[in-house]
């Protein structure tokens, strides 16, 4: 089959499908419109799949299309079975997954997109006629070869990188960075090898070229991600998300498919922007994240200094008493809340306090937790209405009026060193001004435990701070009990 343009109706419906994807993302500009947005996304995907089936698969469609043969019907059955099988797995996983496991789920899903891109690339290589990218002599166009090679390379990198990210996030592999000696040289060499081979591929359509490209790409995804600490994984996941978008766009160029091109650009931008937001809010450069090694040394130093300064310990009863008397309470959740799964009891505590006439608000830092929007999703899960949840800029001015700043499992995001100590790894990152609140309550498990950045926190030692040392869930449960008295 020669390169023939798909009929207009199909091109139009791919365009519509692309527009649906735009509207899907657009819906996320507010929770109120987000559900409609998601339905747009589903509609767009359904349209893209249906259009392709009508176009390429021998579907029985009355007199409009040639009657399918027996073999054709078998093919159709296989396709529907594949969709049903994969879809079933996806659907069940989505329903069963715990909200706290979202980071690893996203990583796992990414790896699948990457692998799918590799398979499609290979399929196109083996059967170029079906994709309309070959000349009459079965020779694949040079431009298509480059696009195909890039698609496979990006897909394979996404696959192996996401697998490592998944293993680290799920705790199935140590989160600490694994530093191979001379890794920068090895990585650079591999990368150059891939690029060179993709270039060479335009000259030589041999199987070995694409096989080596695939293998090297799997390798580089692995090499790139293992030196990166488990806690940096969210940036990596976002970056891989972006890659998978560009892979889809490359495929779209090959297939002249508007839906794929639009999607690629959307997903590519999304991943890039989220990575940027995270790096910016952590005040780290993207390069330093990608170079890896963060979280390597098990936070030596500071330990001694830490013990010498005086701090006050409080009990659940003390906390409950003060909270009951307060007028304004601002709750700052962090990673520890997710670890302890304390969101439900926290919301319960909030309800109790509201009954006592306390004004309760939640303050979310852009990088609280381990994923953008991590805390918001957990609080939403616990039925905290989203209009009680505020972003950093919107609430930071209110701490002066707050009677209690209630820090639960957060640490770095309230660390004043970010404002004052130029040598601190988090210097320059915006933080909550909790020191302005009358009382600060700080839930964590031990004085020794540190946050993601592995640094000490002056808030522990402030006059108005009361340390509540326990597992977050346990502590909040105790406070609720004490409130009931």
């Amino acid at each position, binding site marked *: 089959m020669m390169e023939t343009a798909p009929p207009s109706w199909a091109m139009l419906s791919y365009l519509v499908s692309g527009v649906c994807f735009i509207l899907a993302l657009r819906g996320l500009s507010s929770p109120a419109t987000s559900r409609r947005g998601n339905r747009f996304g589903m509609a767009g995907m359904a349209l893209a799949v249906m259009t392709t089936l009508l176009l390429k698969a021998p579907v029985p469609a009355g007199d409009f299309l040639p009657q399918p043969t027996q073999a054709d019907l078998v093919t159709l059955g296989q396709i529907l079975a594949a969709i049903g099988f994969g879809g079933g797995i996806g659907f069940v996983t989505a329903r069963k997954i715990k*909200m706290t496991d979202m980071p690893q789920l996203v990583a796992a899903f990414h790896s699948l997109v990457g692998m799918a891109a590799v398979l499609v690339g290979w399929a196109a290589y083996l059967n170029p006629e079906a994709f309309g990218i070959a000349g009459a002599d079965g020779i694949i166009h040079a431009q298509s070869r480059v696009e195909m090679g890039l698609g496979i390379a990006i897909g394979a990198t996404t696959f192996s990188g996401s697998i490592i990210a998944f293993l680290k996030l799920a705790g199935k592999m140590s989160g600490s960075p694994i530093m191979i000696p001379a890794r920068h040289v090895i990585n650079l060499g591999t990368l150059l090898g891939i690029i060179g081979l993709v270039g060479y591929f335009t000259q030589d359509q041999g199987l070995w070229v694409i096989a080596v490209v695939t293998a090297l790409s799997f390798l580089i995804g692995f090499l790139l991600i293992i030196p990166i600490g488990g806690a940096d994984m969210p940036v990596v996941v976002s970056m891989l998300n972006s890659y998978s978008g560009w892979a889809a766009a490359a495929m779209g160029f090959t297939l002249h498919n508007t839906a794929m091109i639009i999607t690629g650009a959307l997903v590519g931008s999304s991943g890039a922007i989220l990575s940027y937001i995270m790096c910016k809010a952590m005040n780290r450069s993207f390069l330093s994240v990608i170079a890896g090694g963060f979280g390597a040394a098990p936070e030596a130093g500071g330990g001694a200094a830490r013990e010498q300064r005086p701090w006050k310990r409080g009990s659940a009863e003390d906390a409950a008493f003060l909270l009951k008397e307060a007028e304004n309470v601002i709750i700052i959740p962090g990673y520890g809340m997710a670890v302890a799964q304390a969101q439900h009891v926290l919301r319960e505590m909030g309800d109790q306090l509201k009954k006592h006439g306390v004004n309760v608000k939640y303050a979310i830092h852009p990088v609280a937790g381990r994923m953008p929007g991590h805390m918001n999703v957990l609080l939403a899960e616990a039925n905290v209405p989203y209009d009680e949840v505020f972003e950093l800029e919107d609430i930071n001015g209110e701490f002066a009026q707050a009677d209690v700043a209630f820090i639960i499992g957060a640490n770095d995001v309230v660390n004043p060193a970010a404002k004052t100590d130029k040598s601190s790894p988090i210097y320059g990152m915006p933080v909550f001004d909790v020191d302005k609140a009358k009382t600060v309550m700080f839930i964590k498990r031990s004085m020794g435990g540190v946050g993601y950045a592995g640094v000490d926190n002056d808030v522990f030692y402030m006059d108005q701070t009361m340390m509540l040392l326990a597992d977050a869930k346990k502590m909040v449960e105790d406070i609720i009990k004490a409130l009931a008295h």
Partner: protein
Amino acid sequence: MDFISILSIFVLACFVGYYVVWSVTPALHTPLMAVTNAVSSVIVVGALIAAATSGLSASAGVSKWLGLGAVVLASVNIFGGFAVTARMLAMYKKKERAPSAAGAGSKAEGGKA
């Protein structure tokens, strides 16, 4: 479609992507990651093209099975991605509705408030 048309579409789509993503509220960044995951499975179009060929040559036969495999993987993503996004989004509620239901994440997609 000539190359310049495709390039034009791509360039404009990048602008749209840039603006659309920046307009996403930070509270919904996790659902954003999930839904972009789902839509990036549009690669399924390529998978379907491969899977739909009736394999005449040996390599076309292999291509068909690779395509079917890709269809399975992409489908996991499509259904999983949209479903998990819907599940998350159903949890974002406004104040009025909050006090009614307790604790455990209600999975109903009904909350349109």
